[in-house]
C-alpha cells in the first residue's frame, strides 16, 4: 500500500505541478466565460442601417396599417431607453407601398424581384386580394408572401405577422359586427406561472410557493455534468500519456523492479483521482463563491455535492482504467488516438440525452440511462439535482453497479497493463487485449 501511495503522489505531482495544468485550469473557464461574454456583447450589435421593403397590397386595406406600425416602431422601439441621447439598437423599417396595376401577378412580382436585385429594397410582401376569407382555398389570391434574396434574415418577415394579422382580425371582426376593443378584452390571455410546491416553515406556517427559475433548473445541472465530463477528460489524458511515456522510455522496467504491476497501476489511478478532485474542488469553490457574491446561494446544489464527489471518484477510476489499458497497449500517440475515440464517445454519450433527462428526470428512460454504469456519474447527478430528485435507492443502485463495473475494468486493465507495458515494437490489437484479459 505504501508503494501505491508513493506512485500516486508522484503521479499527482507530475500532473498538477506543471504550468500546462495551471493554465488549463484557469484557461478553460476563461474560454467558456469569454465565449459567453462575447456572445452577450455581440447580441445587440445588430446592423442599424435602414431596412427597406415594399408592400404590394391587393386588398388596399392592409398596407396603410403596416406603414403606421413601422412608423410607430421607428419612433420608439428601436431605441434603448427613453433618453434623447439613447442608442439605436435596431434598424428603421422603411416601407414602400406599391400600388397594384393591371398586369398579372407573376409579371409584377418579377418586376419587384428585379428591384430587390438592384437593391432598391431588400424584400417585398404580396398580400392577395382574398386574405379576408378565413376559409379561402390555399391559392395565390388568399396568400401573403414574403420575398427576399436573404432567406436567413427573417426579422422583417417575423415582424410583419403582427400588423398584418391584427389588421385582418380587426377587419373580420368589423365585418361580423363585433367591436374589436371588446373582443380584445374578452380574449385576453392569462399566463400560467411556473411555481414550486407549497411548504410549511419551522413555525408551521404555510409558505408561499417559490417561483421556479427554469433557466437555473437547466443551467445548474448542465454545469455539474459538464464539470464531470471535463474532469474525467482532463485527468484521463495525462494518465494515458504517462503510461505511454513509461512504456516508450523504458521506465516501466525499472518501476516493475520495485512495484508489482497492479500496485503501480492502482497508484496511477489514485493519483488521477486526486488530480480530478483537485480540479473539481477548484471549480466548485469558485462557482460557490460566484453564486454567493451574486446573492444566489439557493442555486448552489449543496445537497448533491457529496454524490457528485463520490460519482466522480469512481468515474475517474472506471474510465482511468480504460485509459491506462490504452496507454499500455499502444506504442505511440497516434495508435492511442484511434483507441481513445470510442472511449471519448462513451464519456460524452450522456450529452446526447441529458436534456430529455432534465425535462423528465423521473421517466423510465431517464432511470434506465442513469443506471448504465458509464453514464451513471453524469446522468444520476443530473437527476439528483433536478427537482423533485430521485429516491435514495436509485443513486445507491447506480453507485453499486458502477463500483462493480469499476472493479471489472480495473481487473481487466491490470492484466492488459502487466503484459502491454513491457511489450515493444508494435501496438496490441483489441483482440489481443481481450486475450490478455481472459488468459491472464
Amino acid at each position, binding site marked *: 500500500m505504501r508503494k501505491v501511495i508513493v506512485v500516486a503522489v508522484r503521479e499527482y505531482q507530475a500532473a498538477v505541478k*506543471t504550468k500546462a495544468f495551471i493554465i488549463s485550469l484557469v484557461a478553460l473557464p476563461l474560454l467558456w466565460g469569454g465565449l459567453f461574454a462575447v456572445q452577450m456583447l455581440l447580441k445587440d450589435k445588430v446592423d442599424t442601417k435602414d431596412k427597406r421593403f415594399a408592400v404590394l397590397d391587393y386588398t388596399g386595406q392592409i398596407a396603410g396599417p403596416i406603414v403606421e406600425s413601422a412608423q410607430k416602431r421607428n419612433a420608439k422601439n428601436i431605441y434603448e431607453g427613453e433618453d434623447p441621447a439613447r442608442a439605436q439598437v435596431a434598424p428603421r423599417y422603411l416601407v414602400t407601398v406599391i400600388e397594384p396595376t393591371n398586369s398579372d401577378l407573376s409579371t409584377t412580382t418579377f418586376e419587384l424581384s428585379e428591384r430587390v436585385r438592384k437593391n432598391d429594397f431588400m424584400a417585398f410582401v404580396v398580400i392577395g386580394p382574398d386574405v379576408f376569407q378565413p376559409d379561402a382555398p390555399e391559392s395565390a389570391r388568399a396568400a401573403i408572401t414574403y420575398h427576399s434574396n436573404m432567406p436567413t434574415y427573417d426579422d422583417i418577415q417575423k415582424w410583419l405577422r403582427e400588423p398584418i394579422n391584427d389588421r385582418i382580425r380587426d377587419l373580420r371582426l368589423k365585418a361580423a359586427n363585433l367591436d374589436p376593443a371588446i373582443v380584445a378584452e374578452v380574449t385576453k390571455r392569462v399566463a400560467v406561472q411556473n411555481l414550486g410546491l407549497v411548504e410549511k416553515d419551522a413555525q408551521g406556517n404555510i409558505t408561499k410557493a417559490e417561483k421556479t427559475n427554469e433557466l437555473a433548473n437547466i443551467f445548474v445541472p448542465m454545469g455539474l455534468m459538464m464539470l464531470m465530463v471535463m474532469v474525467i477528460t482532463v485527468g484521463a489524458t495525462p494518465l494515458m500519456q504517462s503510461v505511454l*511515456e513509461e512504456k516508450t522510455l523504458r521506465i516501466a522496467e*525499472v518501476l516493475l523492479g520495485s512495484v508489482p504491476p497492479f500496485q503501480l497501476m492502482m497508484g496511477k489511478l489514485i493519483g488521477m483521482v486526486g488530480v480530478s478532485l483537485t480540479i473539481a474542488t477548484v471549480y466548485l469553490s469558485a462557482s460557490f463563491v460566484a453564486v454567493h457574491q451574486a446573492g444566489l446561494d439557493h442555486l448552489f446544489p449543496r445537497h448533491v455535492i457529496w454524490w457528485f464527489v463520490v460519482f466522480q471518484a469512481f468515474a475517474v477510476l472506471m474510465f482511468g482504467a480504460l485509459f491506462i489499458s490504452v496507454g499500455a497497449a499502444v506504442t505511440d500517440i497516434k495508435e492511442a488516438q484511434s483507441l481513445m475515440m470510442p472511449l471519448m464517445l462513451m464519456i460524452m454519450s450522456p450529452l446526447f440525452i441529458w436534456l430529455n433527462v432534465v425535462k423528465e428526470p423521473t421517466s423510465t428512460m431517464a432511470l434506465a440511462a442513469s443506471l448504465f454504469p458509464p453514464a451513471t456519474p453524469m446522468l444520476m447527478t443530473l437527476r439528483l439535482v433536478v427537482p423533485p430528485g430521485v429516491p435514495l435507492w436509485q443513486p445507491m443502485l447506480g453507485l453499486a453497479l458502477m463500483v462493480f463495473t469499476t472493479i471489472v475494468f480495473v481487473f481487466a486493465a491490470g492484466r492488459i497493463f502487466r503484459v502491454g507495458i513491457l511489450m515493444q515494437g508494435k501496438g496490441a490489437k483489441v483482440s489481443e487485449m481481450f486475450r490478455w484479459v481472459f488468459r491472464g
Partner: protein
Amino acid sequence: MNVIEIENVTKTFGEFVAVNDLSLAVPQGSIYGFIGPNGSGKTTTLRMIMRIYHPDRGQGVIRVLGETAHGAANERIGYLPEERGLYKKMKVRDIVRFYAELKGCRDFKERVAKWLDRMDLASWADKKVETLSKGMSQKVQFISAVISDPELVILDEPFSGLDPVNADVLRESVLELRRNGSTVIFSTHDMAVAEKMCDFIFMIYKGNKVLDGTLDAIQSRYGQDTIRVRVEGNGSFDPGRLDGIEHVTDFGRLQELRVSPGTDTQDVLGALMRHGRVTHFEMTRPSLHDIFVRIARPEVEGASKSAAQSSVRKEPARA
C-alpha cells in the same frame, strides 16, 4: 552460497530461441560479468533473473536470493536496464528520491544527498532530467538502481557511453557495493573492463553458454598459444603467411599471433627476424577480447575454431 542459481532454463520468443538450456550459479559477494555479442541473450538472461521475463513453461528453475518465485518487484534487488529511461520532466533529486521510496528506504534524504554527491551530481539536483547529458542521466539511473543498498545489483551495460572519468566513478561505486557485501552482475561489451573487474565471466552466444568461470580458468583453457610481437622494417610483411600461425590480430603497432598446437615458437621468432627487426616478442595467454572474437566470429576464423568452440561447450559450467 549462491545468490543466483539457474538450472536448465530455456526462453523462446515464438520460433526464436533466445536462451537455450542455460545453467548458471552466481556466488554471493562476487562480481559476475556477462559478455556476448549483441542479440546473443544477455539481456534476456538478466531480465529472467529480474523475473520481468519468465522461462518457457516447465523449463528449469531460477532461484534468486533463495526464492524460486516472486514478482519482478523485489526490494533486495537493484536493476539498471539496458535502455535507460527516466521521467524527463522530473527533477534529479525528486526522481532519485522516488526510486528510493519505492524501494522502501526510510532514510532516503541522507541517501539521496550522499549518492548525488558521490556521483558529482549535487549541483544538478534541482535540474530537470531532460537537461542532463547522456552520461549524467546514466549516473542518475545508476543511483536509482543502487540507492537502497540491494543485496543483488543487476546492471545491463552500465559503462556504455560514459567518459573515462565517469566510468572510473561508476567502477569505484560498483567495487564499493561489493565491499559492502552486495553481489554485482553486469553485462558489458568492454572486454578490458570485464577482465579487470570481474571475478567470474560468463559468455553467451546465440543463446548458448560458451564460457563460464574465472578469467584465469578461461584463459588457461586456451593455453599459452598467443605471441605478441612488434616487428619494425618491412611494412608489407604479413606474419599470417608464416608456418604455424593460425590467426593474426593487427593492432597497428602490435600484432597478436595465434600459433597452432605443436608449433615451436622459436621457429616463429626466427622467421620474424628474417623479415625485420623484432622489438617486442611476448608469449602470453589469449586476451578475453581474443577469446570473444574466436567464439563469436567462427565463420571468419575458419574451421579450426569450430573445434575449439565445441570443446568449450562440452566443459562443465565451473568446478
